[in-house]
């Protein structure tokens, strides 16, 4: 574990690794998206209650899950940067925030698009919806803090503390539907013993989730590369890299 950290925690190695992996992940993402969309939009039967509009589930649910998942990645990377001073972890945490905010926004947007036919309004102040909005604020707050501090190291460390403190909200979002009886769908998919969703809908959903994951990984690597270059702009290897690309 620590060997790996040591090896790929070094910015230069991480940069090279990210460079080799990016195209692979890019292709996997594309393939998964095609499979998921074909499965979800064409093969899966329309829902007997909701008709075609249920198909938005293939965007909504993965992005809602991702919004929580990315936050956990961001907080863990932040913690690693804080405790073990792994520079790459800082770059990862920093790169996560805008993507997390984007997934959160997507979950909010698709949710309210879906809400219109389902509940008759775009928006209700229900617990899960509100806490998802709070999550968006957490991401925005993290990004605002990052941009307010110009010293990179300081920004990364301060952001990590904030992200860790905000972790308290994650279980609240997840369990809000159970703690309050609200309008929003209860656990339908994540009840693994007996998912209350038909298998022909479930499989494309899982594929889409994988697609989102792999999309996240791809973009993360691209962003992290940029962050590393910026972070290490005064080191010799980055200078050499620049000279090479200029030549």
């Amino acid at each position, binding site marked *: 574990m620590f060997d790996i950290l040591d090896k790929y925690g070094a910015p230069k190695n991480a940069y090279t690794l990210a460079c080799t992996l990016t195209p692979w992940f890019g292709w996997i993402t594309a393939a998964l998206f095609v499979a998921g969309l074909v499965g979800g939009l064409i093969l899966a039967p329309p829902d007997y209650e909701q008709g075609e509009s249920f198909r938005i589930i293939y965007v909504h649910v993965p992005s809602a899950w991702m919004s929580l998942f990315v936050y956990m990645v961001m907080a863990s990377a932040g913690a690693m940067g*804080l405790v073990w001073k792994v520079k790459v972890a800082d770059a990862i945490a920093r790169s996560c925030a805008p993507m997390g905010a984007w997934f959160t926004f997507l979950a909010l947007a698709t949710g309210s698009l879906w809400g219109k036919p389902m509940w008759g309004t775009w928006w209700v102040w229900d*617990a899960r919806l*509100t*806490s998802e909005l*709070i999550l968006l*604020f*957490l991401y*925005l*707050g993290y990004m*605002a*803090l990052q941009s*307010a*501090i110009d010293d990179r190291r*300081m920004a990364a*460390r*301060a952001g990590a*503390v*904030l992200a*860790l*403190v*905000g972790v*308290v*909200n994650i279980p*609240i979002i997840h369990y809000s539907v159970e703690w309050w009886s609200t309008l929003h769908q209860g656990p339908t998919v994540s009840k693994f013993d007996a998912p209350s969703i038909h298998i022909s809908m479930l499989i494309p959903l899982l594929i889409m989730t994988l697609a989102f994951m792999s999309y996240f990984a791809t973009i993360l690597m691209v962003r992290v590369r940029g962050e590393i270059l910026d972070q290490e702009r005064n080191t010799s290897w980055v200078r050499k890299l620049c000279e090479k690309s200029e030549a």
Partner: protein
Amino acid sequence: MSLVSNHQAFLAILLRDLRLGLRHRGELLNPLLFFLIVVTLFPLALGPDKLTLQQHAPAVIWVAAVLASSVSMDMMFRSDFEDGSLEQILLSPHSVTMLIMAKILAHWLLTGAPLTIFALLLSILLYLPVEALLPLFMSLLIGTPIFSLVGSVGGALTVGLRGGGMLLTLLIVPLYMPVLIFSVAAVNNALHGMSVRGEFYFLGALLVLALTLAPFATAASLRIRMG
């Protein structure tokens, strides 16, 4: 010839902050008055209907408490940062976490505590029935220290940043949200004669969590922000 005990240092910082707060009486009264203004704005805006007011009283009071607390949080570290006192505190051989606890306690005594008492008065003005008063009081008594604790982390993270006060609000209000939701739910439950136990367990758990984690997080944040 020797370092005073941790208790004495705690007490000294507590007294220092209380004295600073009281010396400028404005500072002490301000969050309170801010609270008062927010609460009075409401009947003004909602109209004087008794039932409406009564029904919304818990929400209004709690929202006002959140705002008053978040706005007052800025003063916890800002002046210490600006005049260099914070450096001196960080260079103390005493446990910084403990010194910060003293600052948090002082902040609560100067803002949260009077606000809690004041809220009772205001809630009567908003026609809140008697059976909801105790839950309101209790929820504020648990909730406002959480605000001071969580807010101190935000205050430490944003200290010295330009526009820090507002950035701080942005950072901490989302963190206040669970407290707000559960407290209002508790008071509303009490209003409708339902049990409030679940909500208070949750609030209590949050307080314990905040008490154990926030001072460390604040100390760490201050160190980070200094250099």
